């Protein structure tokens, strides 16, 4: 594994909590690793497991899904579905040979800028330690 390996991590963030929290981290000039790219979605409940599989297939080294805290969902119940879905998701990924350390789901509210920073840092560290994601990419091949 290359020492200077810089993973690319994709983060799905809900518009109302985590995306706002990430913005707040910026407004507070917090610093975190550059490895994360955020895709804005209305709700973590919008994140189809298909999106995550696609990211891994394309070569994502890590995927993070973030939403409002359970009970705080802007859409009342969306994140409960997220929670259930991604408990299954982790097992599915493991079954497919993706280290579960590459996939994380977290609840970060609009005021938890520091938690966003810490989560991104921690996930980056974890994924860095795991090295580049090659297995799933190779095993599944390119999709037309």
């Amino acid at each position: 594994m290359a020492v200077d390996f810089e993973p690319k991590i994709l983060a799905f963030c809900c518009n109302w909590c985590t995306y706002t929290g990430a913005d707040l981290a910026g407004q507070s000039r917090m610093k975190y690793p550059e490895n994360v790219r955020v895709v804005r979605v209305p709700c973590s409940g919008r994140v189809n497991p298909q999106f995550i599989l696609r990211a891994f297939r394309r070569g994502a080294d890590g995927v993070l899904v973030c939403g409002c805290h359970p009970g705080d969902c802007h859409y009342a119940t969306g994140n409960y579905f997220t929670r259930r879905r991604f408990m299954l998701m982790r097992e599915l990924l493991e079954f497919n040979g993706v280290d579960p350390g590459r996939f994380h789901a977290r609840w970060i509210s609009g005021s938890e800028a520091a938690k966003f920073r810490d989560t991104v840092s921690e996930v980056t560290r974890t994924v860095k330690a795991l090295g580049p994601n090659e297995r799933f990419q190779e095993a599944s091949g390119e999709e037309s």
Partner: protein
Amino acid sequence: MSKVGVFVCHCGTNIASALDVFKVAEAARALPGVAHAAEYKYMCSEPGQQLILDAINEHGLKRVVIASCSPRMHETTFRKMLKKSKINEYLLEIANIREQDAWVHADFEKATEKAIDLVRMAVAKALKDEPLKAQTIPITKRALVIGGGIAGIQAALDIADAGHEAVLLEREPSIGGHMAMLDKTFPTLDCSACISTPKMVDVGAHPNITLLTSAEVDAVKGYIGNFTVTIRKKANYVNHDICTGCGACEQKCPVKTDSAFNRGLSKRTAIYKLFPQAVPSKPVIDAESCLKLKNGKCGVCEKVCPLGCIDYGDEDRLVEMDFGAIIVATGYRPAKWQRMYDEYGAGRYADVIDGLQFERLVNASGPTEGHIARPSDGKAPKTVAIIKCVGSRDPKKGHAYCSRACCMAAAKHAHQLIDKLPGSRVFVFYIDVRTPGKGYEEFYDQTRKDGAVYVRGRVSRIYKEGDTLVCQGEDTLLGKQVRVHADLVILETAMEPSPGSGALLGLLGCAKDADGWVTEAHPKLRPVETQVGGVFLAGACQGPKDIPDTVAQASASAAKAIGLLNKDEMETSPMIAKIEEDKCSGCGACGPICPYKAIALEKIPARDPGTGKKIERLVARVNAGLCQGCGACTVACRTGAIDLLGFRNNQILEEVDALWL
């Protein structure tokens, strides 16, 4: 080929000092589909916007990507700008290179690289953007106010005065709520009836208000601007269209049962008016205690009624009405302390009463005509203990929250006791005294100076000794145990959500918190709206409140409702779920997942693919008025028939793919 224009903002030096904006623009220019890329100091400024509009015309751009601050900041600004152009305002994507790039990274090169990635993702998504049109829905110009306490009364009057129709619904036979039971109101000590009964009369007489008492909500359909509510008008066995409220029936009725309005401190008849100033001022029959309705014997009221208003065969009636807005004003109920506090006697001691009972005792129109007489023997008490936080601030036995009004109620009760019973001693047991309101602290201060003894400590138990009640607690300021031998004990009990409010909130689709109070759309910025569009809240249904706060909130929610009713139609966000009916199998998996009940299965005509015969099949349909665009349904759909406009599956996948081009 779609021509995308990319515009990179420097944000002064905010972005430009942290990453290479020129390089980002250059990289953007090379992206497939991009016809033009530019950078500028302030894209959001007047000249910046003009620069974009000019570029659209000059290069024939079809879509726009702006790399700048967070879309939460200026997405609406740029959408408005696009309305002035030939491009649909939804053919816009924002790459957040300020909050999520320039401001959070120190490495210039890496930040630039990330900005290029973000622009590439935005361009990929923009290429799949489609023109969307905000829909308009009509608005029924009538409001339903649920709950006829002071909150509902105020809200209904405000709406009616603004020229809109209001229907005020109350499940009791009269409006007035808890305020009608109070004697005086703090801190000014004006007589509660003197200020609330005129408002009640106004409601009864207002041409824009329809008053429905003894009525409840049975079902709610529809969405903002277009609610259809089924109202159950409960049988009251008296024809109010002809009844004049003469009172002959009440005088002759042989039944005596506990008066709930007087909190069990007096009796009432089976045919009764809730209280003398009731609005409407007409009696109803309580079927549970009426002899005629229970076992067919009696019928006295029918005999004495000069107008023949009595109808023992009356039944509940259901009526359907349309509304544009709904205000929830269901109020509170005092906590059932008897079930919570064995150490306070659990209701075994007649002379341990709650604050609302004391209001009736001290009220000139109450059971004792305002003479403070203790329930057990009718004697005037010489020593009275008032205990606060009964059921409040007690997560173990009651509720964790503070009920907000009890500190002032206790001060008022202490004041009234000292005022009406010269020479009596009043002890107020408290944990903290909370007086955050205009004139409140001054009132509390005066009560203390008048002679009420405040003892800091929660009473540990009450027991009987002879015919006195011993309140045993600690004077925590002294660090000594105290035993107050009281003739009367008043418990200032917690407020709890009104019984049945939970079921009503379920019908409306409104969320409630762990304690059962209605959840606001936002605790600070949208305090009188619920999470359901077009449903507003007023008063104690949202949490414990005193009268001034309740009335203020009622007027605020009325203003919100009036704002809605003033429009003939309203725009809804077009970024909602869309169903491809050809793909939909009608399985119904999406319905239960929707938090807004926006998806329903409908039958549509179809042809059997085998025989070509006309058949019907089920498909899911999205109600544009209800859908809020969360997208949860899209993930549940097994056939992939549902997609979310503005965040379509293929748009998100393009974004993902773009990162690894």
